[in-house]
């Protein structure tokens, strides 16, 4: 879909004359860190993101110590105590014909804080466990995507010729697939089966499948600007000078091209991760992402779909979690881009 990160936002090589604050001698990375620390938005959003990560990592503690339920086993016949009275988790419907059961709503107490889902599982505990998976998938697929895009983009831009021809055309073709439909297609044939690659075995329902799929579909969006950046760097004076001095191509790649491309990759990282969180939730919502009984924010949203009118909290909570996380990532990403690319910050 249209959530394309801005292209061609790249950093000019660290400018040694930018010594107005005495930063020049401290190296470019130090300067980036200082730039981030100087921005309250970046500091606050990074801190809140860290808080979210820690909270999801504490999921087992919450499930055991606070809610005392197993968020992966259905608790259809479970009963909890409210005000000393036992209350069933699945409540008999009292409206209409009185048929069917409705899961308990938010109790705002330690047990079933946000209510139960259609299988009587604690939504709050699943939200934390699901957050682990959502963040893990989004993070891992971001790293994977950047890695593949860097290799493809640099190979196409630096080697040129036939390699560039093949890779660029391949990128164009994958680009022409609508992201969601490509992801859906790959999911259909990959999910729910086990694979064995030599000593490695991917069991069905493994998180590696959604990671691979989400990591692959956005590769063209990053590889294209990387290729353009490498092409521009190839023509830059310092690379030509290095070439004229007879420095080996491998060394030029390592010392001159790669450091300049790395900033472009870093700018993409938070935005891509934000995009991946939304993609994961969408795929899981369409039942081709994370597979049950495993949880993610997307699968909880899917569970909540049928309970939307009776127990909206099951949909509300994971949606808000996604929104807040994505918002924080984008806020942080905006500052990061401005720090890495002072040109784009000029007008702000």
């Amino acid at each position, binding site marked *: 879909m249209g959530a394309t990160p801005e292209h061609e936002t790249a950093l000019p090589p660290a400018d040694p004359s930018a010594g107005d604050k005495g930063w020049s001698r401290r190296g470019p990375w130090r300067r980036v860190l200082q730039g981030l620390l100087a921005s309250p938005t970046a500091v606050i959003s990074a801190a809140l993101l860290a808080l979210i990560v820690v909270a999801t990592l504490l999921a087992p503690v919450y499930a055991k110590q606070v809610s005392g339920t197993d968020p992966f086993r259905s608790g259809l016949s479970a009963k909890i105590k409210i005000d000393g009275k036992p209350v069933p988790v699945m409540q008999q419907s009292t409206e209409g014909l009185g048929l069917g059961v409705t899961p308990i709503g938010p109790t705002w107490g330690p047990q079933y804080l946000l209510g139960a889902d259609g299988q009587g599982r604690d939504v709050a505990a699943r939200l934390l466990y699901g957050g682990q998976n959502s963040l893990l998938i989004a993070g891992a697929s971001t790293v994977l995507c950047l890695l593949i895009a860097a290799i493809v983009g640099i190979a196409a831009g630096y080697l040129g010729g036939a390699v560039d021809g093949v890779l660029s055309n391949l990128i164009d073709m994958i680009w022409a697939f*609508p992201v969601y439909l490509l992801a859906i297609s790959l999911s259909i044939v990959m999910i729910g089966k086990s694979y064995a690659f030599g000593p490695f075995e991917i069991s069905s329902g493994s998180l590696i499948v959604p990671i691979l799929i989400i990591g692959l579909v956005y590769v063209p969006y990053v590889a294209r600007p990387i290729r353009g950046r490498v092409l521009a760097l190839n023509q830059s004076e310092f690379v030509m000078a290095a070439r004229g001095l007879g420095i080996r191509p491998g060394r030029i790649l390592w010392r001159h091209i790669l450091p300049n491309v790395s900033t472009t990759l870093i700018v993409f990282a938070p935005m891509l991760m934000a995009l991946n969180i939304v993609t994961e939730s969408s795929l899981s919502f369409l039942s081709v992402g994370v597979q049950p009984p495993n949880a993610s924010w997307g699968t909880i949203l899917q569970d909540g779909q049928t309970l939307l009118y009776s127990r909206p909290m099951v949909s509300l909570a994971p949606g808000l979690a996604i929104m807040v996380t994505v918002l924080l990532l984008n806020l942080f990403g905006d500052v990061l881009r401005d720090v890495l690319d002072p040109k784009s910050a000029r007008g702000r």
Partner: protein
Amino acid sequence: MLAAVLSRLLRMVVVMFGISVITFLIFFATPSSDPAARIAGKNAAQETIEAVRKDFGLDRPLYVQYGLMMKRLFVTRDLTSFANRGQQIVPAVAAAAPATLSLVSGAAVLWMLGGILTGITAAAWRGRWPDKLLMGISMMAVAMPVFWVGEMVNLITQNRLHDTWAFSWVPALGYTPFSEDPGLWFRSMVFPWLTLAFLYIGLYGRMLRTGIIETYQEDFIRTARAKGLTGRKVLLKHATRSAIIPIVIMFGMDFGVLVGGAAVLTEVVFGINGVGRLTYQALKVLDLPMIMATVLYASFFVVIANAVVDLLCLLIDPRMRRA
């Protein structure tokens, strides 16, 4: 100019061919997708699977299968569904297309108007409260999954508030063709339009604002100011005009992708029987030919949109004609 147009058309054909091969390979040649087993159903006997394999020509070499599939899809157009025996695929997609088109074109009008208005307003009041407010809302719009926004909209308009004066005019979820009842068509589409447009207003508004602000650094803006033009004229006639080109390009791509079926999430949430929902339903029963057809249909829209955008750029920008 003609050479540039021809070379782009040729490229379009090559990309389309490549896409059809990739799609075919994903569905019929990945080791894990055994279409015969899928058609025969779960726990089918080995003989049944073999019979199905022969029946559907799945035992032939891959390139023969590919040729047959494309012939039945484009030439004879009698490719049938694996899940609902006898349901022809091409008519099913054609029947679903108008619903998707209504959803996407209505939303497109809203998001272009909303996005441009947001971008210009935010740029004009840069750094002050209208800018901060609009950009805050835009960031929220981009951060929310579109299907979740749709669910929340449904929660408000279809649930308890549905019987109050505010939302009693909203019909139940579903799609009514324009030809049947234009009034009902409009009323049922209002919230799907708004939901889909919301995300893109955020995206386009942010992008246009950045573009205008960047254009303000250009020399021709300084010249325009030096000539004594009013601030409003500089903003609207100079800065916005040049900053809007990337928006138009993005619009072409997004519109193509969405009409092709990428609006699947919005269609599912609002129960609109469009191409996206057709894909979703085929997905639930693993109806491979149907999914393949809808994915191909969608990617062709992307390629066509790409080509149209390219040609438009050729018309707008003479420098690109030489490339």
